[in-house]
């Protein structure tokens, strides 16, 4: 009788005074990044224990009490102390010197030290490296977004190219390479984002913002080739559904077809005029027959979208292209030489220049994603939410990033009328024709609701 939706939603949290505010119903939906952290916890937790500092308590309006204003002052003081810490490049071996390469708008460094560099930067193979063969093995190249990120973090000391760059003699301590002028962070932004377009690059501020956000969270982020210009790639075969094996479909002759044929032959064909009604009055043995008659709307089925004979190039809208391949921080299978399948695929979208994608835009974007079906024997809701293909849209709105996971859920493949009840388990009766086979349903018939 009651509309269950009108009932009160369960509110998680320890109590009315603590926890998330009344507007946020689900703990999982709260993004800690959106809350301003309390720097006092940072000070107290320095070094000794590695706990993530908690958020402080939130006051919603000024109380004009000394307690509140002193708490605010203490937090502000802690924040200033934390930010005023001076960061220096560690002397000696920890100092990673890098050089800017103007022709390709990239940065290279020789054997940088640090655990960070296991997942960032790459060495170019023979023939691709613009500086030739000498020292190629130890020379690590960094893409523009990687360079800005490392400089911002303080892990890399990027220098402008010096005038006297010669490999022989030189008389300097670095074995021939003179150190150039240091490149400031501002200069990095200018060269890698501001002037990127003129140099044929593709990095925009939105893409960099997404990159740095993900890197700070610990993910491994590499460029996906489709979204950065360059050569058009064919759509790989993995982007399509696999062809089904075999041609014989079981269940062609089912009991219900037999009875229906028999009955219609006797009772005279009720002329099924589709003008009158989709489900004309007649004899139906079960609701599945009725529902099958109702299914007249075609839907997109990703399991039957097979690879065409000729490989095709994707015709994606430039505003909706795959930008990054992302691996989780705990993923131990990642190697620079063989990254493996990415855990997530991100497409960076500028919210101010685009609108909610149309069907063509989103379908051509999903075409470039490999096919990833859910488990066939899973729950209905899990299968629908997992979808057959999925992509994460990073919608950047003037510096505020929102991630939306769009997945191609084929509702048409989940026929609810065939799986009603918790105990159905996918049993299908129409495997064999004729009578006398199995003993029917056994004791299952009498179960309650």
């Amino acid at each position, binding site marked *: 009788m*009651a509309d269950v939706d009108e009932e009160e939603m369960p509110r998680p949290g320890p109590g009315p005074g603590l926890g998330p505010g009344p507007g946020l119903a689900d703990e999982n939906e709260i993004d800690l990044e959106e809350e301003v952290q309390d720097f006092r916890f940072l000070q107290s937790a320095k070094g000794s224990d590695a706990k993530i500092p908690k958020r402080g308590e939130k006051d919603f309006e000024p109380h004009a009490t000394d307690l509140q204003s002193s708490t605010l002052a203490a937090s502000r003081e802690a924040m200033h102390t934390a930010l005023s810490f001076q960061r220096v490049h560690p002397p000696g071996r920890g100092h990673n010197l890098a050089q800017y390469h103007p022709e390709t708008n990239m940065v290279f460094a020789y054997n940088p030290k640090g655990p960070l560099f296991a997942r960032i930067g790459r060495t170019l193979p023979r023939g691709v490296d613009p500086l030739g063969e000498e020292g190629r093995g130890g020379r690590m190249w960094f893409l523009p977004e990687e360079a800005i990120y490392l400089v911002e973090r303080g892990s890399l000391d990027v220098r402008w190219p010096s005038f006297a760059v010669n490999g022989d003699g030189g008389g300097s301590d670095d074995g021939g390479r003179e150190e150039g002028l240091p490149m400031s962070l501002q200069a990095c932004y200018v060269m890698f984002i501001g002037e990127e377009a003129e140099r044929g690059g593709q990095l925009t501020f939105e893409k960099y913002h997404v990159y740095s956000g993900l890197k700070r969270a610990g993910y491994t982020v590499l460029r996906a080739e489709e979204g950065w210009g360059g050569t058009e790639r064919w759509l790989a075969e993995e982007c399509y559904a696999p062809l089904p094996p075999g041609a014989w479909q079981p269940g062609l002759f089912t009991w219900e077809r037999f009875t229906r044929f028999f009955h219609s032959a006797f009772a005279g064909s009720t002329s099924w005029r589709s003008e009158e009604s989709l489900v004309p009055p007649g004899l139906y043995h079960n609701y599945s027959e009725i529902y099958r008659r109702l299914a007249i709307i075609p839907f997109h089925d990703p399991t039957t979208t097979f690879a065409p004979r000729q490989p095709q190039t994707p015709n994606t809208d430039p505003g909706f292209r795959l930008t990054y391949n992302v691996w989780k921080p705990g993923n131990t299978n990642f190697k620079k030489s063989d990254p493996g399948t990415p855990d997530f695929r991100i497409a960076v979208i500028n919210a101010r220049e685009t609108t909610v994608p149309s069907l063509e835009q989103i379908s051509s974007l999903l075409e470039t994603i490999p096919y990833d079906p859910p488990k066939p024997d899973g729950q209905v809701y899990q299968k629908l939410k997992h979808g057959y293909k999925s992509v994460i849209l990073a919608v950047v709105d003037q510096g505020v990033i929102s991630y939306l996971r769009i997945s191609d859920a084929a509702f048409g493949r989940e026929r609810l009328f065939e799986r009603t009840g918790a105990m159905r388990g996918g049993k299908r009766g129409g495997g064999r024709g004729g009578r006398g086979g199995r003993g029917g349903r056994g004791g299952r018939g009498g179960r309650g609701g």
Partner: protein
Amino acid sequence: MQEIILPNTGAPGELSTQRAAETLPKEETLLPPTDDVKPKRQSRNNNNNRKKARNFNQIHSKPLPLETYPLPAFHPSNPISLLRLCYTFLLHTFYPPSSHILSVDGYPAHFSLSTRSVHVTDPAAVKALWEMGFFGKGSLSRSEPTWLERERELQRQARAGGGKGGFTAAEAVTRQRREERRLFKLERARVEREGIERQRAVERGELGVEEVLQGDEGAGGQSLPTPPPDNLEHESKGDRGEAVDSELLDPLLAQAESMPLLSSASTGPPNNTTLLSPDKAAARVSIHELEQAAPDIKNQEHLQLTLVEAFFLSYALGVLDITVPPPDQTDTQTTKTVPHLPPLDLLNLFAKTSATTKTPPTGPSPLEPPTIAINSHPLHARAVSHAIATAPLLRDPTSTTLKVPFTAAPLTPQPEALVPQPAFTNPNNPFLLSYITYHHFRSLGWVIRPGAKFGVDYLLYNRGPVFSHAEFGVLVIPAYTDTYWSSTAEGRKAREAERGRDWWWLHCANRVQSAVHKTLVLCYVDVPAPLSGDDDSDGGKEWDVKALLSRYKVREFVVKRWLVNRSRD
């Protein structure tokens, strides 16, 4: 091999008692169904409730208002079952029962232009349509048409002198729960204010710190109140399925038991009876007048079906018989009705009713019953009040009539004509887009209901609103992939009105859905190009509704918010 298709919920049998005369064999392991005897196993709601528990599994056992006749089971070890099977088989062959036995000529309904909906007033039809598929909404109730029962309950309470018992409508439960929560919030705000006041007093030096601590432990009212417990939920458990309640109640109970913020002493849960008494007293006072009378109440409520639902019931299932008043009579008169409209004309009618024309036609439409007539021109109430507000002052205060110049026009756009036209309408019609989505999800087995209360177009339920929360909220977005819409001039013009939505709209919709634990589904409906040459070939080519509907294509996407910090492992 005997294929047995069980009824969907396993409720006792599909056969109603009215047809016992046909001596169709019943399922042997299922209990015989009767309407007044409830099977014993349903009393899992074993509370000491006064009223009978409603077994939703039994009431809503049929997903659609049609009847099915499964063949009985076949056991190879039992020869009698073979005989029964043959008997049923032959009976079905020579005397086939109809699936539309419950609605032999269709449930009667009539189309109402002023409300853009279809009304059903026949009580049997109302009951059948709600119970078998959750179609429609009671016009005076929240969803299920319960107005008559609520009125009868009020009268019964008046005659019995008050006291709870009998039927408790969901609306009353909600009202009480909201009242409790409001009081709880007031209490919480009061406690917080007192805490701040004390803090200020401490700082001003008026109150010593020891006194503050004493105050915390002594007075019981200083602690934050716990949220109201769920006695109310327990009482009305009989009204709802138990499984759903237990999931919802547990977090609330856990919350109630957790320690409040400030001090150790906690007040007991607010006395439930004190919260209920204002309600009861009010009820007692208001229904004293009704004590004397005990006449039967005429049901003022009707079941309101949206145009989409009505078309589905009428065309797809064929169980609804919609009467449409001809254009020269208003809704209130029912002297003559047009004969039953064929589905194509019905489609045209609904499509035209749903389309809003950009320029409203001048002059009032004869269909609309005039709300107020001033200067013998029918006007809408809003126009009237505007006209009165801007009217010049009366010279003569003793004159009783107010003369207002006619300046206003009807506010809502009216469709051009009620008479269906043979030409087919623009496929880019909002009714058709909604209908395509509705039909698509119904044909898969979902119960789909309007989702305006959660800011979406539709809500999808697994079995129905009484069983579980809706899991999905559907937004319908048209898509124009056909070359007609991008290449031809008129196609482009027709598309102009449908600009892309901006991202903030999508973020809003997504946030609302996640706050109510639902998943957002974007349903793109691919609109085909309009049919060509339908103006010329009037009777030449017969358009088939099924063919028209099959030209559309549906694709769904599930949208979920992805959190950076939560997806690390």
